[in-house]
């Protein structure tokens, strides 16, 4: 009983450590004043001003979606190809594919800059930014698709061929549906990694192109007058992102639970 009390208490404490900062931000996003220490009355004014950061949000979302779609296609095809190339080539490729996963983002981004420099290209461009994000996201798509390929019954593909399917049909009608959960997980991962990224964006994006990460960084770390004026607006934005995240997590998991139940009931 006492043990249970302690373990529950411990879990509660760690959760408090994780959530208290977020909750404080959420509460003070409704503060009429700009600072955290003085409550000047309840107000929605920072939410009304969210339009000011609209372009930043748009940049972030468009970039993340374009990157995630490309990374998912590139990574899924790559994973299927790698999985079926046994031998040295496949192994080497799996190894190389791990490099961006373990490498630090600064080194990844700066290596890309040096490549552009050597080729005589500009170090800051939308193409460079897109490529940078692709490098840090695609290996994670590969990582989430590969286990699903391993779990798949290898004879399914051959059965499809024996029954008269063309290789392409076998791929789209047999392999793809089997690995779809992995593909979806990879897509979600690519989206979050791109949304989350600061370093690659800060080093490769064209000047004046800000995502949420770089804009918030400017407001809190550099604390220029104009940037820190936006701080309360970012609190409101955090609140909205937090609520969106929570609802997406709940919806996805309730759906997968239901699916599990349905499949379990068969």
């Amino acid at each position, binding site marked *: 009983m006492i043990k249970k009390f302690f*373990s529950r208490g411990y*879990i509660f404490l760690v959760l408090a450590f994780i959530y208290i*900062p977020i909750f404080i931000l959420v509460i003070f996003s409704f503060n009429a004043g700009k600072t955290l220490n003085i409550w000047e009355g309840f107000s929605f004014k920072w939410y009304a001003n969210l339009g000011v950061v609209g372009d930043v949000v748009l940049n972030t979302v468009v970039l993340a979606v374009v990157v995630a779609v490309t990374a998912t296609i590139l990574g899924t095809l790559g994973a299927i*190809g790698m999985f079926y*190339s046994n031998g040295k080539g496949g192994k080497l490729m799996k190894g190389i594919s791990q490099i961006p996963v373990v490498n630090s983002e600064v080194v990844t981004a700066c290596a890309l800059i040096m490549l552009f420099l*050597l080729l005589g290209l500009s170090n800051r461009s939308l193409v460079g930014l897109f490529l940078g994000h*692709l490098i840090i996201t695609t290996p994670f798509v590969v990582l989430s698709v590969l286990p699903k390929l391993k779990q798949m019954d290898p004879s399914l593909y051959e059965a499809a061929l*024996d029954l008269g399917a063309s290789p392409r049909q076998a791929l789209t009608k047999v392999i793809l549906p089997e690995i779809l959960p992995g593909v979806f997980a990879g897509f979600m991962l690519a989206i979050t990694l791109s949304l989350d990224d600061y370093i690659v964006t800060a080093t490769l994006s064209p000047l004046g192109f800000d995502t949420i990460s770089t804009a918030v960084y400017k407001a809190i*770390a550099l604390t220029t007058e104009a940037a820190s004026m936006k701080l309360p607006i970012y609190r409101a934005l955090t609140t909205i*992102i937090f609520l969106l995240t929570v609802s997406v997590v709940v919806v996805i998991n309730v759906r997968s639970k239901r699916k599990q139940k349905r499949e379990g009931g068969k």
Partner: protein
Amino acid sequence: MTELSTKAMTKSGKKFKFGFNRKQLCIPYALFLVMFVVIPLFVILYYAFTSSDGSFSFANFAEFFTNKTKISTLLISILIALLVTVICLLIAYPVAYILSKMKKSIAFILLLLFVTPMWINFVLRAMAMKELLSLIGVSPGSFANIIGLVYDFLPFMILPLYSTLIKMDTSLEEAALDLGANKSKVFIKITLPLSVPGIISGAMMVFLPVMSCYVITDTFSGSTGFTVIGKLIAWCFLGENGTLTNVNGGATISLVMLVIMFLTMLATGGFKSDNSTRGTNL
């Protein structure tokens, strides 16, 4: 599997065609990897071993290893990364252990609560912690940095630990208890050694990123100037108006970072990829 499929392929007479087809799919990704992962590594080598006029030299390394500020930043980064990894491990291990012993349905919900903040932008989370610290009067500096780093990296440690502990064969623990070992002995002799893979992949998710995570140190250092090695690299590439200030110097530090990365990988026996998925496939 290969033998079987070869047989099937010859039987249907499509051996060459479809064997070729499936492998072909990875060509775009292979080209991508060569262009943007392999070649850039050699480009780093090239710039690290040349001076700004393009001639071969060791000057960048001489400069790095004799520059007191740079060397101390490197050492401090390693120390901070170790410290943050250990703190995260000490906080996360009991969490993962308690969760792994709970009823599955409750543990699942709690785990979701722990990993949900990972989907909130990481700079926004840093902002939240920074505002809380200034609210309760913790002044900027190394202590604030450690709190900020632990705050941002804790979920990355909980997840791999939990997935290792939950996969563990509980009958081993039961057997040890039956054979007369007490609970602490079971933990030290059975549970802890079996969870080492989780500890390693958790540590990899924290140790290396902390060394380059200058966003957090910039946020929590204030005017103390406390920073990590990643900032030194970024400085070489983040000139005021988009100019590159010191490409060769940056390449040298990048190379040092790469060496540290490979040494860490060697020491830990590679990266356990199945735990690195941030909980999207919980």
